[in-house]
């Protein structure tokens, strides 16, 4: 019965407008982000730039962070990300004065005028060849230890309400240094040897896809959940012999398969590009890399978003799941914006890795990523079990929350 229902659910999904809208959005996402994807060439000696990398050198961290502080102090406006959301902070006179003092203690820059002059000189210097793209770096004050620096930066971060460029996590990210030719070659070699080319591009593909897959499945789940009520078919289905487990699982599986299918089809494009390049360069590319990454990286997100959508729709008989998932997605996407280059996957619903390179980062963060994906898979299965329970209760005339809400409204009016 499950198999037959699954096939019918897939057919229903294929006929739904919302499904095709989702497919169109995924195609749009793919073509705008990866449509023109070119396989990166091997770094050559004497290139103008090999990109940037993060440094752990305290001296570089101090110089970069002080550069940021000088810039923001002059601007009298600070960018922060408390709980992952963008916030523009303007300080009152007292706090502004304290930041000025911190800048003087750490960089020896006394007053806003001196800072302004440094910024103007730096802007002028940036126009000179070889300095384009360089970030402002300020030498620390004489005798300033790294501990003193971190204490004062922590204080600045506290004044700014947290999530500023001066907190522990962010100030390390400020320390971007240009990659050397050797570093670039090492990273490129990792792409060819460890990732067999396709692995790196599969991660990049997942990075773009996961953003939209963190929200789109909820629309499919909600429309499927509400279809029975809108079509006045609930009672016809409720009184059938079929178990609630079979009904819900067949719907869920159909949703997952129908959402994964277009992703797999879209992945054929970068796969073919990779295979073509690999063929010419004599690299033994992994043909199944995109499939593996789609299942490992994207499927847990599709699963948990769909499951949450199903659960909340069955529970409320409304589209409330869209709001809940929208909020979750917003937080996930914005809080993940500071770890775009991969390696720091945390517990994000939408783990990012916005480069085909950085195999080392992926390797180092793999255990965390695996734990993340397993957690969401387990959460998805738990949500499905809960949905089955709610559905079976509704079939017995219990848990009609929407009916109760409407009744309450009527009673009040």
């Amino acid at each position: 019965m499950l198999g037959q229902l699954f096939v019918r659910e897939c057919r229903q999904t294929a006929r739904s407008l919302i499904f095709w809208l989702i497919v169109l959005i995924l195609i749009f996402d793919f073509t705008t982000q990866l449509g023109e994807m070119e396989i990166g060439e091997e770094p050559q000696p004497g290139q103008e730039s090999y990109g940037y990398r993060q440094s752990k050198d305290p001296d570089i961290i101090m110089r970069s962070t002080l550069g940021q502080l000088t810039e923001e102090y002059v601007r009298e406006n600070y960018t922060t990300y408390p709980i992952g959301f963008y916030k523009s902070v303007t300080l009152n006179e007292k706090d502004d004065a304290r930041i000025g003092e911190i800048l003087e203690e750490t960089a020896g820059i006394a007053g806003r005028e001196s800072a302004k002059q440094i910024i103007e000189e730096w802007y002028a210097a940036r126009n000179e060849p070889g300095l384009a793209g360089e970030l402002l770096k300020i030498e620390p004050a004489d005798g300033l230890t790294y501990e003193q620096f971190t204490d004062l930066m922590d204080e600045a971060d506290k004044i700014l309400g947290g999530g500023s460029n001066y907190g522990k996590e962010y100030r390390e990210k400020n320390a971007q240094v240009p990659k050397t030719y050797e570093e670039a070659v090492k990273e490129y070699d990792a792409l060819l040897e460890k990732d067999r080319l396709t692995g790196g591009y599969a991660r990049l593909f997942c990075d773009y896809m996961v953003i939209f897959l963190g929200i789109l499945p909820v629309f499919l789940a909600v429309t499927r959940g509400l279809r029975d009520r809108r079509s006045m078919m609930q009672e016809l289905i409720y009184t059938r012999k079929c178990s609630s487990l079979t009904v819900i699982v067949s719907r869920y599986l159909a949703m997952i398969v129908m959402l994964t299918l277009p992703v797999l089809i879209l992945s054929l494009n970068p796969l073919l590009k990779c295979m073509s390049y690999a063929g010419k360069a004599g690299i033994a590319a992994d043909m199944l890399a995109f499939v593996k990454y789609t299942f490992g990286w994207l499927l847990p997100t599709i699963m948990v978003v769909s499951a949450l959508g199903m659960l909340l729709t069955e529970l409320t008989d409304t589209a409330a799941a869209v709001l809940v998932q929208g909020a979750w997605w917003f937080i996930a996407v914005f809080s993940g914006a500071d770890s775009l280059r991969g390696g720091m996957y945390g517990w994000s619903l939408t783990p990012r890795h916005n480069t085909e390179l950085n195999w080392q980062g992926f390797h180092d963060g793999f255990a965390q990523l695996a734990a993340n994906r397993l957690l969401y898979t387990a959460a998805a299965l738990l949500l499905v079990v809960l949905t089955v329970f709610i559905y079976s209760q509704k079939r017995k005339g219990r848990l009609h929350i929407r009916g109760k809400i409407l009744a309450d409204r009527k009673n009040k009016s």
Partner: protein
Amino acid sequence: MSTTIEIRNLNQYYGKKQALRDINLTIENGMFGLLGRNGAGKTTLMKVIATLLPRSEGEVTVCGRSTLRAQEVRRIVGYLPQDFSMYPNMTVYEAMDYLGVLSGLSKAKRRQRIPRLLERVNLQDDRRKKVKALSGGMKRRLGIAQAILHNPKVLIVDEPTAGLDPEERVRFRNLLCEIAEDRIVILSTHIVGDIEATCEDIAVLDEGNVIYQGTVSDLIAMAEGKVYSAEISKRELELLKKDYLVTSMLTLGNNVMARFLAEERPFASAKLCEAGVEDAYMYLMHAERGEYGC
């Protein structure tokens, strides 16, 4: 194996509101009518039998199976709710097939039964039509076909003729009678004509109470000798309405031919008439409340 529906001391509550009060009914093979005004508790009773509502108190068994064992009862019950439809983008055949799968019918059985049922409800030529393109009557017939798709021992139909034109209504009643030859069919309605044309055994519900259970002929017998007609002026009609329950009126120029209920002949020109189900139903409902001349 029992072939009856047994309802014992059934009480049903929606929060503090009591929808059914101490219902005791035995329903046997054939057509069984549930009559009552809107809000009398008919739909609640049917939903309890169809396992769509958990009973608050009492016992309900369907062919020997307690409604507490919902899945077992669902195997043998077909249900046609008052307000229903099907996925509008499905064809008639696909909708039947989908519900057939949910009923656990094998592919071979579905292939065998669906065309036969569509023929029976006269929808064989519309099997490729989308559900959204069906008329109200066609949808009702499709509703019946889906309800008996798994050959249930019990068929429950709630207000099935509401909104149908007279021709469709007659066709629908006949269909129900045919289906009831070998199973229990519970027909709930507030339209007395539907009961009159199809059922022998009935129960009348009023405010959650069964106020009558028996045969249609016994119900009619209750009103025998209490139905009168008289040709009166329109002014006299207003006076008549104050004292008696007028069940029908026919305008004849300046006069009106009124049919009404009274315990005894109210005036000399009033003629005693043969009672019909509608008269008996009205008599029962109003006698229960001690209204008018009843």
